[in-house]
């Protein structure tokens, strides 16, 4: 018989390294037509880092994502970056890019101020224009300003900056301290069906509600969450490296069982409305935490369905059936 169950799990997760410095540096240059180039030492590993960093630079400069080209990952040309690790790119590298873009933008404000006849601190960059705060009709096209600044004033619009999350070392005896500057939070709820004659668990649906601060690009955040859940489903039910005498016995994708398209549930993603003042435009991060609560939610759903408490992962069908039979026997 098929038994239905539901289970929830929530979690918290930090952004960046534990206490250890993990800085990023970035350079942003505004071209004379108002487009921009970002230099970053981080690496695009599929998460969409370069798109997000481009959006952050574009936001700071008041231009569109497509106006920004991001150059990355070459030690000969790009600045220091701790790398694509610890869910830190949006927050740490993003802050560096934002700060660098603001420096480049300030050069444009200096150039535009005499043109618009207001002090630089009365200006904002929006809609591809440098405009007077509160008077959007008083504006100059950003390309015109960049051209003027570079070719007339001799002040190219370029900025470099770095960011490192502030931490306080942990006491070696008690672990007390401030190991991270910020954390994200999430809840996932799983609905499962358990076949009580085979122990097979089918995850039907997962609702995932995550906090990532401001989502710089909601589509990419959703993608991270959906992918994290697939890793969580594998961790929960299928995946395990097995050994015999110290040698792996399933080091291949035939026998190391990870989810296929047929094994994945319907996923519903929502983001919590949140803003972290320490992140770029309120953003925190999204990469790793997406994979954290899934297995726990599924285990709780299995318990809800058939009363079996799985205490060692993965919850293979054999393990679940073993639990069911034990319950029936007692």
């Amino acid at each position, binding site marked *: 018989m098929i038994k239905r169950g539901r289970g929830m799990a929530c979690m918290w997760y930090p952004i960046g390294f534990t206490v250890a410095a993990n800085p990023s540096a970035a350079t942003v240059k505004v071209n004379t037509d108002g487009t921009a180039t970002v230099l970053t030492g981080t690496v695009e*590993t*599929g*998460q*969409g880092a370069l798109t997000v960093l481009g959006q952050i630079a574009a936001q700071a400069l008041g231009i569109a994502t497509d106006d920004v080209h991001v150059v990355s990952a070459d030690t000969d040309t790009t600045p220091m970056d701790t790398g694509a690790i610890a869910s830190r790119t949006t927050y740490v590298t993003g802050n560096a890019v934002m700060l660098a873009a603001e420096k480049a933008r300030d050069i444009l404000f200096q150039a535009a101020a005499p043109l618009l006849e207001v002090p630089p601190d009365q200006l904002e960059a929006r809609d591809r224009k440098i405009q007077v705060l509160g008077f959007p009709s008083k504006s100059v096209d950003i390309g015109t300003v960049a051209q003027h600044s570079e070719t007339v004033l001799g002040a190219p619009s370029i900025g470099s900056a770095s960011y490192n999350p502030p931490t306080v070392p942990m006491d070696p005896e008690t672990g007390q301290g401030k190991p991270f500057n910020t954390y994200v939070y999430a809840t996932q709820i799983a609905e499962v069906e358990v076949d009580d004659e085979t122990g097979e668990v089918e995850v039907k649906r997962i609702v995932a509600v995550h906090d990532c601060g401001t989502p710089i690009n909601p*589509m*990419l955040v*959703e*993608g991270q969450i*959906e*992918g*994290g*859940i*697939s*890793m969580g*489903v594998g961790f929960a039910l299928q995946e395990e490296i097995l050994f015999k005498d110290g040698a792996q016995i399933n080091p*291949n*994708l*035939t026998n190391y069982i*990870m*989810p*296929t*398209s*047929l094994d*994945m549930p319907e*996923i519903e993603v929502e983001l919590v409305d949140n803003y972290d003042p320490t992140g770029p435009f309120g953003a925190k991060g999204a990469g790793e935490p997406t994979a954290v609560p899934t297995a726990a939610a599924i285990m709780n759903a299995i318990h809800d369905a058939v009363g079996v408490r799985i205490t060692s992962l993965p919850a293979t069908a054999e393990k679940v059936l073993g639990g069911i039979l034990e319950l029936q026997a007692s």
Partner: protein
Amino acid sequence: MMVQLTINGELKQADVPPETTLLKMLREYLNLTGAKLGCDVGDCGTCTVIVDGESVNSCLMLAARAAGSEITTIEGLANAQQLHPIQQSFEELGALQCGFCGPGMIMSAKNLLDKNPEPSNAEIRDALSGNLCRCTGYTKIIEAVADAGQAMNSAEA
């Protein structure tokens, strides 16, 4: 041995050792690196191409076997003005992340939509089960295939 193939509508040939797989011939002899080598034993699907109208793991097919066949690879889908609707949907819906599964995934999607223009969600999942993806949970990929199917149907209507 000399192997002749029609690839993306053009006749190509290369002199390859008999043990050469179709994947190796595409990548190393014809410089078509869209199809990827992810596992080399037919589990991951990154090497998927279409041979005479059927998708196959090109890592498991000898080039010699494919001689004389019509082969479609990822490089053959777009033209100078237009992405293929599947490529368009994958891009717009953010279906690919690291992208390594992408060429194979899109060829599997094409194989499906060529035969079944209005697949159900279950049929899409079934059709993609030979293409592993570790980034996306398949969610946006499945949405993109459905979306592309609709786009292709309305374009024909």
